């Protein structure tokens, strides 16, 4: 059995609107290995969330998703029908969303959510568990650091804080025991202290389940503390991917360099605004003819304006979409 859990080639996704399709994801290649934590970094609108949703086929009806190849653990996802995909979700694939408060059914108690998930997990694993569900619920809430588990079970979602709900959500995922978890900015809405606790939980979660995690974030520091590899997304493309250390210590794409500079400046307590990369994402309906980053790039030259760079491979699975990286490597 290979170590590759997910293999995606040329994933594109967009939304149909007024007779046209607005592209959001433009040709993403991604392999995810078993048990690894892959960070996807990008500013909002870069297509990172859509990539995550497309992976679980959770995009709304007006989305258009295409790929040359989409394989999960040897199974071709492209030919899988909706029912077959539904069977994968919750059993082998799971997702954690940005807003924990909005992720819960407001009409049902926490206990109901846990009970529902236990039923789903047992059904997926084709097993029957003798332990009463309340006991299982208590145990799993303890696992995610909720001390007053017994009371929490009988509460409604609106009675819990965002941090607590994110813990419960992690408990639900823990119960499902999936092989791949897509976490979409799970700590963005939390304050710093709670964020650190939740991140620690993620590390535990990953260790206990030995699941692969796709951790979507806009925060370099968070990604660095958690991820084995990092993919930087810009305007629907992965502009740089590689081992976390490599990407951080020697960012190769001008955009990554900017992100690292910003994050270091923030860590030193300097005003983040100053170090931020000027400009904004290109309008999806008016893309520049050459490199998508060219209008904001301070190192752009003639070729960048007419030709779009392809990913240029480097050592340890590194790939960079930039002519500069290609030129630096070529002489050797």
């Amino acid at each position, binding site marked *: 059995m290979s170590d590759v859990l997910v293999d995606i080639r040329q994933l594109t996704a967009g939304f149909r609107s007024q007779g046209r399709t607005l592209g959001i994801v433009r040709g993403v290649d991604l392999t995810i290995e078993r048990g690894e934590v892959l960070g996807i970094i990008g500013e909002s609108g870069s297509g990172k969330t859509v990539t995550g949703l497309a992976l679980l086929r959770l995009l709304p*009806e007006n989305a258009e998703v295409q790929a040359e190849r989409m394989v999960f653990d040897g199974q071709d996802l492209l030919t899988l029908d909706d029912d077959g995909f539904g069977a994968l979700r919750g059993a082998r694939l799971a997702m954690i969303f940005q807003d924990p408060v909005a992720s819960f059914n407001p009409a049902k108690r926490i206990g109901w959510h846990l009970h529902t998930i236990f039923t789903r997990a047992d059904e997926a694993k084709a097993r029957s568990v003798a332990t009463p569900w309340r006991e299982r619920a208590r145990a799993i809430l303890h696992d995610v650091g909720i001390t007053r588990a017994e009371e929490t079970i009988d509460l409604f979602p609106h009675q819990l804080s965002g941090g607590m709900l994110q813990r419960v959500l992690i408990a639900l995922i823990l119960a499902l025991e999936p092989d791949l978890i897509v976490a979409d900015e799970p700590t963005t809405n939390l304050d710093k202290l709670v964020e650190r606790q939740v991140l620690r939980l993620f590390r535990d979660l990953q260790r206990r389940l030995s699941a692969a995690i796709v951790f979507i974030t806009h925060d370099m520091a968070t990604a660095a503390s958690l991820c084995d590899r990092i993919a930087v997304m810009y305007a629907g493309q992965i502009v740089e991917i590689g081992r976390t250390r490599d990407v951080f210590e020697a960012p190769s794409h001008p955009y990554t360099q900017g992100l690292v500079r910003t994050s270091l400046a923030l860590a030193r307590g300097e005003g983040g605004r100053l170090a931020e990369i000027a400009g904004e994402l290109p309008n999806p309906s008016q893309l520049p003819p050459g490199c998508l980053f060219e209008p904001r790039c301070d190192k752009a030259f003639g070729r960048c304006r007419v030709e779009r760079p392809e990913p240029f491979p480097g050592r340890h699975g590194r790939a960079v979409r930039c002519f500069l990286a290609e030129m630096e490597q070529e002489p050797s």
Partner: protein
Amino acid sequence: MNSKFQIGAILRNRLALAGLAITVVVILAITLGAALMPHSEEDMDFVNLLMPPSLEHPFGTDAFGRDVLTRVLIGGRMSLMISLSAIALASVVGTMMGSLSAYHGGWTDAVLMRFSDLLFAFPSFVLALFLMVVLGFGTPNIILAIALVYLPIFARIARNMTMLIKEEPYVQAARLMGRRPLSIIVGEIIPNFSAPLLVQASIGVAFGIILEAGLSFIGLGVQPPTPSLGSIMADGREYFSRGPWVLTFSGLAISFALLGLNLLGDGIRDLTDPRLRERAAP
């Protein structure tokens, strides 16, 4: 945006267009059409009593041999006149009441709003019936009764909108410049919620027609022989089993007019409410 939703959006606009077209047709029919009819609504023809629809009388004749189409057109004019007057009265008075109440706040506002809540708790037809008893039967009193039933709805909209708008900087500025409250309300506040008022007025006219027809139908509204859509239907129910066309055609006429007004109201709401427009896009 979803392509399916787009079909819905176009269709909804088309429906609004259809509503406008129906309303225009109805207005033309009860003004020009009624004037062009060869018969008079009071001409009795004792040879052709209760005749089924024919080329001569497309909606048939009633028990006095009167042409039903002519009566429906003249009666429709009466019904629309009553409803329009009532809604005009209700919208002007209700809007002013609601706006003034919200602008000044305090206990007047509280009392007025409790009172409108109370009026809301009565079934509208029952309230109209009660008001007819209190005011006495007769056409001017129908207008007054319908206006009173619909008044709290306008007052409520005006109050809620004024509450929101009165904190806007331009209203504050007008206040600081020393403009009188009435001038601020009429000049700055009310124009800002004309769209919901228009929607409510269009639905309100439909509602007023139904109330009038209901009151006249049970005999408490417009009195025969004056035709209104309700009184024609009341006539028609007397001999419904022998000549169902009288009631059927007058009822279809009223439904047609209401369909137009309802579609128009929905259409204006879709076009003017940005919140709803956003909602159409997932």
